[in-house]
């Protein structure tokens, strides 16, 4: 009997795009996108199971091996820093992880301390530690852009897609830290113990992505 492969997905656009690719791999799983409160669903064959979790929890489920495979943004993956295989750049959900603030804010000016509001506490800490800059990291969970506007922080560290939200609030990108996109991550044991299914799947996903690029 074939082993069931469990996917950890975050509801929303990442899941939709993932389903597109999996359908191209011959996995009949469109139905998992139907509106439902179910947290665990299967494809038509029952050989693939899908669990829906919070985006930042995807790497955690995969690291522990309760999910074999996951789809997650590079930004979340960097923040969570989990022990998983990061096999494929899926190429969708592209965005930039940036430092942003008022346009006259000079990042290069020496400062005793810089106040940074962000959802990405770990990345922010690593980034400023690496520069030897003392930083007060203020963890927020949404509307990060408010930080500099209400005077909570000097700047923010956040993902930027179109830059519209920043613009409308008179903020701009001060520095790009890294380009992000969705990644296919795999548990370090599952890749080997379920290689008969996962290895070919990885191969076909890789081909689909490469064909798209060309």
């Amino acid at each position, binding site marked *: 009997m074939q082993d069931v492969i469990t996917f950890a997905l975050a509801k929303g656009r990442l899941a939709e795009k993932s389903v597109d690719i999996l359908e191209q791999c011959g996995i009949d799983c469109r139905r998992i996108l139907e509106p439902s409160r179910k947290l665990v669903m299967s494809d038509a064959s029952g050989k693939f199971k899908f669990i829906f979790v919070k985006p930042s929890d995807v790497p955690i489920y*995969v*690291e522990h091996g309760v999910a074999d495979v996951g789809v997650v943004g590079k930004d979340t993956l960097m923040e969570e820093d989990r022990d998983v*295989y*990061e096999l494929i750049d899926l190429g969708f959900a592209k965005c930039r992880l940036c430092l942003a603030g008022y346009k006259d804010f000079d990042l290069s000016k020496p400062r005793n301390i810089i106040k940074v509001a962000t959802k990405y506490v770990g990345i922010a800490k690593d980034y400023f530690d690496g520069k030897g800059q003392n930083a007060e990291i203020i963890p927020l969970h949404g509307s990060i852009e408010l930080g500099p506007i209400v005077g909570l922080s000097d700047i923010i560290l956040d993902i930027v897609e179109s830059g519209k939200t920043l613009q409308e609030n008179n903020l701009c990108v001060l520095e790009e830290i890294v380009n992000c996109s969705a990644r296919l991550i*795999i548990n370090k044991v599952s*890749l080997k113990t379920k290689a008969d299914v996962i290895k070919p799947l990885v191969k076909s996903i890789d081909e689909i992505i490469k064909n798209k690029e060309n």
Partner: protein
Amino acid sequence: MIKKFKLPKGAQDHLPDDCFSRRVVENKLMDCFKFYGYSEIESPILERYELFDSGVGKVELNKLFKVTDVDGDLLILRPDITMPISRIVCTKLQDSQRLCYLGKSFSAIENEGKLREFTQAGVEIMGEQGNNIDVEVVMLAIKSLLALGLDDFQIELGNVGFFKGLLDAYDVADDDRDVLVNCIESKNGIKLYTLSGEMDKNMLDTLARLPMLFGGEEILQEAQSLCLNAQMRAAVDNLKAVYAGIKSLGYDKYVTFDMSSVGKMKYYSGMVMRGIIKNLGRAILSGGRYDRLCDAFGKNIPAVGFAIGIGYLTRALDNQQKLIKAPRVQVVVGYTPENMSLAEKKVKQLLNQGVNAKCTFATSKKDLVKVKDTLKAQKAIFFGTKEEEV
């Protein structure tokens, strides 16, 4: 929150049922190691900080659980047992040893299953090298997991010489090495792409093949075709020889390969191994050859070994309903001051018949019933003026 009820982060209690099962697992492992000629050794949990502060065995300061001695010296709770054993062999024993251990190690940052205190059983062969010694160690890993009733595991082999040789062939600088180790360890071919401006294109192309270079014996053929120097060829030859050795013993179905096993590259010097099993997302066994570890003591002693995490192993067994659970107490025998030896004799008799019986002091039937309830025993026998069931 009442702090006295709370455990420190990463500490864990083991309740009686859990203890019973773990002890069975530990005993089976140690019996297996001893059967194959390994002598048990024990080192202190407390060591001097300096032991882990130099050479290839250096452990990052933030991972060490530190304690200050009364005179201000820095002590640590050992992060593993291999380094202390190397210390003992280099200072107190002859250079050639086959040793096994069972004990707790500590990590200041959360480690195995979020724990900072964890139990490992393992073996070390000191002072012997060659493919046959590597075969011996891989075989012992297979035998010890079989002894526990597991059979759907893989012992995944790699050899750090393959990756080291590749980097040497292209004269990669130290800083770049660290970046590449991270890429290969997480099978991150994406990151490799982004380095194409900074590093040799041919090397990156070869490296990009490593993440998927895992599987059965056939992988070694492909690995051989990628060899650029003697170091890489020696690594592949070692794996081929180990595979041939295991095959001659008839256990090759448990062996797989991953040429991108490069973790802790400074520590390991040759073959590396990892035990994995379905439905447990973590390795239950890890080890390899570390011929340079004793350099720190001014000695040249080759060494190879592995450690098994008791926590993960127990979980793997539990997942497969193969964990031996504590048996229920069937009979409890109570005795009054006059007939203790009679009662003990009775218990021994019952035990010989395969009945799980216990003995207890009880001055009255009422006391005995209480004990019976505490032990959740099915039956109680009271030795008062005569033997009677209560």
